[in-house]
């Protein structure tokens, strides 16, 4: 999956990919103070493409808000919500909404799920439906944070660590391997990284085509940009 950190105050964005074996579960957001946890599990392509490159995507998210007692499991097949002591299932094939005292859900048929957790966080999960007979690809999900300003300064995770901003400088722009993608040097978190100008796609407006967002790409699974390395974010269970 590709991660994108858009910094509107700088009109700039940072991006990186995380690649690991299909089935790995990563922590995306963890806020010990508010009790929020978002984990995601990856899948790979149906078979290894001719170029031998294994691509992974998120297909399942587990979301917990301990304080509110809310638990959500969102997969490419269905959406399950646990609140007030019972599980409720929603289907991607229906447009619908569910309003509770602590959580609001809005499903747009075969497209998106918007989740608002009371006084804490709002996000949207996009469903990318792939032609069922596609030889390589299968359905997958995208996770977009819409509002995170109420989370505590202790929030962490592959996305969460950037919720309260990041300081960086980019200098020494130079030609890269391809003319469209120049390289540069980034100073971030006390380190000097070689980064490449590229773009990643934001699918919120157009789930099929997406919109290109130019960004500074950090190589090697975001090494140097993320705290520690990608393996530090692997957990054994979805909840």
């Amino acid at each position, binding site marked *: *999956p*590709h*991660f*994108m*950190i*858009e*910094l*509107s*105050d700088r*009109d700039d964005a940072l991006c990186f990919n995380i690649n690991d074996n299909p089935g790995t579960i990563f922590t*995306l957001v963890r806020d010990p103070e508010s009790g929020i946890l978002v984990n*995601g599990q990856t899948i790979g392509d149906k078979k290894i493409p001719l170029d031998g490159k294994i*691509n992974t*995507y*998120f297909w399942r998210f587990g979301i917990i808000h301990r304080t509110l007692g809310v638990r959500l499991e969102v997969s490419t097949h269905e959406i399950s919500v646990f609140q007030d002591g019972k599980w409720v299932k929603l289907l991607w094939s229906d447009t619908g909404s569910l309003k509770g005292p602590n959580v609001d859900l809005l499903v747009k048929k075969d497209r998106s799920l918007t989740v608002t957790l009371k006084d804490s966080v709002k996000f949207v999960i*996009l469903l*990318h439906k792939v032609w069922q007979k596609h030889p390589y690809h299968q359905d*997958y999900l*995208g*996770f*977009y*944070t*819409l*509002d*995170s300003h109420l989370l505590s300064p202790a929030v962490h995770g*592959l*996305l969460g660590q*950037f*919720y309260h*901003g990041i300081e960086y400088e980019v200098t020494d*722009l130079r*030609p890269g391997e391809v*003319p*469209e993608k*120049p390289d540069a040097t980034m100073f971030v978190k006390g380190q000097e990284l070689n980064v490449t*100008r590229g773009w*990643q*796609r*934001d*699918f*919120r*407006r*157009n789930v099929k085509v997406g*919109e*290109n*967002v*130019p960004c500074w790409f950090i190589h090697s699974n975001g090494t140097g940009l993320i705290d520690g390395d990608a393996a530090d974010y692997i957990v054994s269970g979805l909840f």
Partner: protein
Amino acid sequence: STNEATSQVEVYSVTVECTVMSRFAHTVMTSKALNKANSSQEIFFEVDLPKTAFITNFSMEIEGQVYAGEVKEKEKAKKQYEKAVSSGQTAGLVKVSGRKMEKFSVSVNIAANSNVTFTLTYEELLQRKLGHYEILTRVKPKTLVQEFQIVTNIFEPQGITFVDAHATFLSNELLPLVDKTVTDKKAHISFSPTVEQQRKCPGCDGTLIDGDFVIKYDVNRAKGFGDIQIVNGYFVHFFAPPELPRLPKNVVFVIDRSGSMGGRKMAQTREAMLEILKDLHEEDHFALILFDNYITGWRGSLSKATKENVDEARVYVRHIRDDGGTNINDAVLTGVRMLVHDRKEKRLPERSSDMIILMTDGMPNYGETNLQKIQENMRFAIGGNMSLFCLGFGDDVDYSFLDVMGKQNKGLARRIYEASDSAVQLQGFYEDVSSPLLLEVDLRYPENAVDSLTTNHFSQLFNGSEIVVAGRLTDNDLDNLPVEVFGEGFEEKYEVQGEASALNWNVVYPDEEYIFGDFTERLWAYLTIQQLLDKSKSGTPDEKVNATAKALDMSLQYSFVTPLTSMVVIKPETEDGTESPLIADKLTEEQRQQADKMAYPVLTPVSNTYSSPSFFVDGD
């Protein structure tokens, strides 16, 4: 439609009939409805028409009684309008509808078991863009209609090269219903689905018919002086010769990077510029000037569009960031000086076209801020030696300022609507002007044979476009009209002479009734009014007054609803005996912009999600 959810109004006929004769399109939209209820009901007639069209007629026929609209001078109509407003009635009939269309809407109270027929007529001269003409019809009947028909007949004496008809609502089932017959000089396109074919699903009342019906076509283009048609004492000359080599161009892009361009606008400008640069031809020259409070640039002079230079420029473009104020005056002047200097130094090909493309979203607030003074400065500095094209981004820019500045300098202005496709709009504009074929084109006719000529000098002819000149023949019986065309082409001058003769319509269209009588005259009137309206904004004070007066006279004479006239429609008396006049106006681009600005929060409700930082993970 009606306001009632369970209305007993039957819309039994909706027809759109368009006749095109030599690019001049005359469209009649008719809608017939019957109030089957036992009580009176308010019935709405709401249609979209292209913003380039002028309404020429509107009528309502209620139980045999016709209520026809009348075109009046705007000021006079306004008095009636104010009277209506003061008595609590709303009167405006025309509103903005998207980028290309205007919405005309009227409602009338219909007695029980009564009929009403609404008829709206509008006319426009189709413009050739990117190698074709386009007829756009927007249809949205709210219910299933017994008789639904879109019929278009195209008569092009030059011969038709292709006709393509499609619609945004055409499914595989509806597609075969588009009937298209094309012969050498005539095309007939019709679309007439039955009630069952209109139905969204078996047994349901929803209609599939909702969207744009678009016809595109082109004509055979004559070599030499082009094609001239003489009809009833008027002539029209179409000039777009085929197979002309394109001229190299020298283009300076002057790009606003002020604070207000921040976010998506800046990103879209970068995105568009990356594509535009890629499309430059190797023999072109180009430069990039950025401005906020300060003026900066990629290089101090124009560079040849070699692959290396373009690649370097694209890297530069990727790093354009917004910051600071808006100094349009000095930025454009820097571009002008650069072109003048490079010409003087003979760094640019002798036969090439010089142009400046200004992209901005805001009002100048740094350096010279007096708009009129900026226009004067540009006119003085440019001195007719290059073209200035102005692209106004979003709703905050003063469009009329850019429009006048463009027109005063052999160019034009275009609004770029702030939306997800802004980058495509920027590229689209560039495509329109990116391939000049001829410069300083002069179309000449014998002075003693013609008068009331529309503009016959054009600073450029662009690939895919067409020059149109019309005029009145002083000798009504003249059968042959001598013509000369001069221009500056690639490597040599373009000079042709010829003689056009009047067509024998019985031979060209033997099976048609003679319907073309006043088409050429109305085309001439339409074109003349358009040009007078332009002059009324960008000419000298005297020219402005004269042009306005003449445009008003002609609008009234030919019954065109233009920005100077209004159509007054008197509705039937209500039960309390009051009459309520309604007014149909022609919107100006400034009014359209104002309307868009007001509608902004409604049109883009999700924009907030883009202004805050966002963090996401997804797959490509």
